[in-house]
């Protein structure tokens, strides 16, 4: 039984249209063929583009918050229980408004219903939390309240995923669930192991539900969730990621920030797994053609390389990033050439040709990163420049402003 407000065919049609738009952009199909696909895949829902979606989301959130604030102000609600009750009722109303927007106006990722649904989860959780802390204050420790809050939040967010299909709701639910092991007053090693166990279980359940006859849109969503779970598993396993924060904080009481305080068997198992997980992830991504899994694990492999020295206790040098950069460039060039030399520019179905063109919104992340690059390069700062309004401008572009 599907709890989703949208039918499987509607979701599949949306997925097909998305693919077709990419094909059209890449010149693989003509305008006429695109129209034919559109005619045959009417999802009978109302969609909008990403920018309008953002506008709708922001302004619906603003309006609903103001409406709630106005109600609280005009009725003069003061007590914690009354506020809790108001938030719960408001959450329920917003939720039903979101469902109403979908069922009556057929909104799909339109921003309006999204904002209402997300607000409803937040309001219900905050309302519930205020209510139970007021009712049971003194009887339980704050950790119990946090666990209850996390459980409610995880459940509500997961309900949103099941009902509306928002992937980010599933991820929020996962994050909320992950906080629970840290509230159980367990030793740090056990906290990590319990978290790892939870992630691995969810991951295995996800893989188990991956069937070849499944709808394409569902496979696509599963891939995203699996990639996120692999990242979560890796972050749980790699002790040195939080160790970077530990370098800045002297306090050795927080063991998670000081990996060397973990028992040696955990420390070295973590070292081995930090190599094993990305390696297996890349292999699995390539084998099953799961782009997101493959990309996520390549990034994780880079993280492993950058934490390798910390694990082994070796000295870090300023040129380490440069070596990493050279490695990435070399790898990228070698793979490109290897694929290019294959028969018809392909090897095992992989090609370096630009077959599918991305959307163009005028400016992309690479352009923005390039604009920030001059900040990497510091610039001259002589005392006489201090009182200028550019004063030293620790930025600069081509030959800028601070000092080596």
């Amino acid at each position, binding site marked *: 039984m599907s709890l989703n407000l949208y039918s499987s065919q509607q979701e599949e049609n949306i997925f097909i249209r998305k693919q077709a738009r990419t094909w059209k952009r890449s010149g693989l199909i003509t305008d006429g063929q695109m129209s*034919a696909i559109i005619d045959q895949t009417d999802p009978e829902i109302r969609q909008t583009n990403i920018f309008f979606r953002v*506008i709708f989301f922001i302004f619906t959130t603003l309006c609903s918050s103001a409406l709630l604030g106005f109600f609280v102000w005009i009725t003069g609600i003061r007590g914690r229980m009354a506020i809790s009750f108001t938030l719960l009722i408001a959450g329920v109303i917003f939720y039903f408004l979101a469902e109403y927007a979908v069922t009556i106006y057929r909104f799909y990722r339109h921003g309006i219903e999204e904002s209402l649904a997300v607000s409803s989860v937040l309001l219900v959780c905050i309302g519930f939390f205020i209510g139970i802390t007021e009712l049971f204050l003194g009887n339980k420790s704050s950790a119990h309240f946090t666990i209850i809050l996390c459980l409610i939040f995880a459940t509500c967010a997961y309900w949103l995923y099941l009902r509306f299909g928002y992937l980010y709701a599933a991820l929020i639910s996962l994050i909320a669930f992950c906080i629970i092991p840290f509230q159980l007053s367990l030793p740090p090693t056990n906290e990590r192991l319990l978290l790892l166990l939870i992630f691995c279980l969810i991951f295995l359940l996800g893989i188990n539900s991956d069937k070849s006859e499944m709808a394409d849109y569902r496979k696509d969503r599963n891939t995203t969730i699996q990639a996120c779970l692999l990242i979560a598993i890796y972050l749980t396993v790699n002790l040195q990621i939080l160790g970077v924060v530990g370098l800045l904080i002297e306090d050795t009481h927080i063991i998670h920030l000081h990996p060397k305080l973990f028992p040696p068997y955990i420390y070295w198992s973590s070292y081995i797994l930090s190599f094993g997980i990305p390696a297996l992830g890349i292999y699995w991504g390539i084998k099953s053609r799961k782009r997101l899994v493959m990309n996520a694990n390549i990034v994780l492999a880079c993280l492993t390389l950058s934490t390798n020295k910390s694990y082994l206790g070796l000295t870090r040098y300023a040129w380490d990033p440069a070596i990493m950069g050279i490695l990435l460039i070399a*790898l990228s060039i070698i793979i490109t050439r290897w694929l290019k030399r294959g028969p018809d520019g392909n090897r095992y179905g992989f*090609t370096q040709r630009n077959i599918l063109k991305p959307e163009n919104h005028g400016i992309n992340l690479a*352009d923005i990163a390039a604009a920030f690059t*001059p900040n990497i390069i510091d610039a001259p700062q002589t005392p006489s420049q201090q009182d200028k309004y550019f004063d030293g401008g620790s930025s600069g572009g081509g030959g800028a402003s601070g000092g080596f």
Partner: protein
Amino acid sequence: MNIQKLLQKMFAEKKIDAKQLRILLDISAGRIFSVHRELRFFLYIGILTLIAGAGLTIKQYFTNLGDIAIISALTSCFSAAFIYSFIKVAAYNKQEVPSPDMAFDYILFFGCAFFSMDIVYIETQFHLLGNLWDNYLLASSALFLFLAYRFDNRLVLSMALSTIAAWFGFTLSGHRFAFEQYYREYAIAYSLIVSLLGGLLYRLDIKKHFFDIYLNFAVHFLCIALISGVAQYKIFSIYFPALLMACAALAFYALKIRRLIYMLYAVIYGYIGISIVILNLIHRQTFFIFTYFIATPLMVIALIFKFSRQFKEDE
């Protein structure tokens, strides 16, 4: 119906040919899998970390390495990158030119970054221009602009525009983004110059696809400067009508060319500016403040909803 069944159906109806069917089925089933974007991404990240590593190394070890070693290493790196680019580049064309290979754009970008580093190092060590050091920024941005247009490189154009911003006294690092009066005026001047330059080159039909980069730089500098002016002087200044005009022009442009990212900018910046003025007028009147934040979002939603009907979801 899934994508495979739909393609088969279209083939049976003779809406797509056999070659198309085979390619599209292969792509959708993952039998043809392009890793072009991934390879480009890792190349770019590699270049960025290489630049960061080189910068850090020089910063930390310049006394051990010596001036000659550093300057000659940096000079040879950027010279090699520029020579490679000039050898590989196709003839100049006013229209968009595809890169000869995947690494081409990034090699030029790498050359420009190393050129900057070299110039910075020389000036830091030898103070050749002394108080006039900021003229390096202007010269560098001119060089980057030339290279961006000659090699059709968006990354170098972004670098050129951020270098011009640095010459005007702005940094994009954000830790000192204070908007005093002179900053505001410089930001407005910068955005006007950048938009005029971009507009002129667009009119002359030279690399028209670069215009969006100019416009993005200009819009953010202009709107942030005008909002800071509105925040300081409220309604009784030139900044408020200027912000309204800028946002109206942006919304009109977005609708005209059907690029809705500008509509998003116009709505957000415009709403912030108007809210600052209105909230100043209804200061401490809670009823009106709530009414404002209930009514105006509804008005924006209604307005955008009306516009959104003209657009398909992919636009």
